[in-house]
């Protein structure tokens, strides 16, 4: 959770403003059509100075729920170590962010955290209610009521269909809820003959480059269903590479290798 922003006073977790690591809380979400249950536990910073301020009601945990697709931005505060909240399921769709941080809950004329960076010397600060005291932890999850992330087939994010052009290159459309690949009429008729016989070839030739590009476009299209599903697939598979081509190959279970094996087997059969 190490970030850096220039605040007018030291902020826990903001670079080396304060010589202490901040503890990350645990966030769990339970999603159904009717409700969205959010359970946040382990709400403590592990930095005594701020944890004491929370106990004294001078600081407070702020929890913000953001859902850009449905224009939700709800903010709650708590001083407890656990926070459970039920939201109306119909208020959320697509990407939901949970932002957690500590904010001042009272005016503090002599705010002087221990272990401040030496540049602050012996200075004390005048903090007002609402001012940020710790950096923000952000957790993202996906509210997608019709989707089973355990299956996560590529067909849940990408569709192939016949385009209106007679021949030539295929198009990939990312602007819709599902990525759509449009084949020329000529390619479509060939595609129909091959998709059930050597599907791995289609993965290697069509799906792989499109998914690789989609990975690089995920943030730009964050409100599209395909983007949140793709993020979830990557997260479930615990892929650590930063290369979109490597990630795409892992998602598709190494399609080139599978295509080589399938084509060779097909050729061997004669």
């Amino acid at each position, binding site marked *: 959770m190490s970030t850096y*922003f220039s*605040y*007018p006073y030291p*902020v826990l977790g903001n670079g080396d403003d304060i010589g202490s690591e901040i503890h990350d809380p645990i966030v769990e979400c339970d999603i159904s059509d009717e409700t969205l249950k959010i359970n946040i536990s382990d709400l403590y910073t592990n930095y005594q100075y701020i944890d004491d301020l929370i106990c004294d009601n001078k600081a*407070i945990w*702020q929890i*913000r729920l*953001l859902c*850009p*697709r*449905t*224009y*939700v*931005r*709800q*903010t709650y*505060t708590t001083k407890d170590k656990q926070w459970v909240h039920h939201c109306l399921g*119909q*208020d*959320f*769709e*697509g990407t939901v962010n949970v932002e957690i*941080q500590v*904010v001042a*809950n009272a005016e503090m004329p002599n705010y002087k955290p221990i272990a401040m960076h030496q540049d602050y010397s012996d200075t004390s600060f005048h903090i*007002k*209610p*609402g*001012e*940020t005291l710790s950096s923000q932890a952000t957790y993202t999850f996906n509210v997608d009521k019709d989707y089973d992330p355990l299956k996560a087939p590529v067909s849940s994010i990408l569709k192939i269909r016949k*385009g*209106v*052009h007679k021949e030539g290159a295929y*198009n990939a*459309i*990312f*602007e*819709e*809820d599902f990525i*759509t690949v*449009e084949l020329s009429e000529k390619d479509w008729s060939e595609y129909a003959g091959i998709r059930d016989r050597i599907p791995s070839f289609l993965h290697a030739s069509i799906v792989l480059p499109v998914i690789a590009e989609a990975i690089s*476009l995920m943030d*730009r*299209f*964050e*409100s*599209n269903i395909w983007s949140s599903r793709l993020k979830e697939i990557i997260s479930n598979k615990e892929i650590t590479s930063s290369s979109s081509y490597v990630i795409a190959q892992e998602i598709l279970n190494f399609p080139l290798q599978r295509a080589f094996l399938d084509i060779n087997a097909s050729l061997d059969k004669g």
Partner: protein
Amino acid sequence: MDSLKILNSSSLSKLRSALLNSEDIPELYLNSDIRPIFTEDCFVNTTIKVPSTVPNLKVDITSDRTRAKDDAKNALLIYEYLGSLSRTQASDTRLWVTLTHSIFWDYTFARWPSISKNSYILEHWFEKKGGGLGALRRNSISRLWWAAYLTVAPWERNSELDVFKSSDREKYTHILLSQQQIFFDVLERSYGSSDKVRICLLDALSHFLPKVKSKDNLSKSVVKKLSLLIKHKQLESISINSLRKELYDLVESCV
């Protein structure tokens, strides 16, 4: 009351695809007299009930500036027509594309006439996907519904806003849509999604807008200062009265 029918995903996809795949502006969008034709199997039923009489949205086409003049009135008419949809229903692209391509086809043409690029059509007749907060706020009809939904009698949905209770339930809709710049500065910024920040900001603006010559410049200056302030201050965590004063002072400092 009738059940509203909306285009199914496949019809929507074809419509959008025809636009995205065309280098030129499709003929359909060059002349409002040409209307899209859909067969019965292009639609799916919804649970949304609407009156049988469609509201008559007005646009003063004298100039680009006058075209926005009736936005607030139109927003309230659309809100009355569609009612209080759930947020999930109101985030469904199919609903808004159906409306711009059917009963509000003429209105959309009159309100958004500067068609020179396909992306303009995508924004105002469809939903500009990947456009973040701007996406739903650009469609010709969804922008009106969301503007009203987020501002009509806000104290009825959030008791913290009781301090703003007024006999004029539509006061904040009129302020929000009084200037395109304000609409943009409030609804296309993340803080504008917060009921508290949105209403406190609109309330503060309402006090000072009559006192300035350039309302757009006031809104721009306020946004600049507000964007700096929220980098270190979490406005939603302070009391409604403190927030109200904070934003009042901020707007006053920009006058």
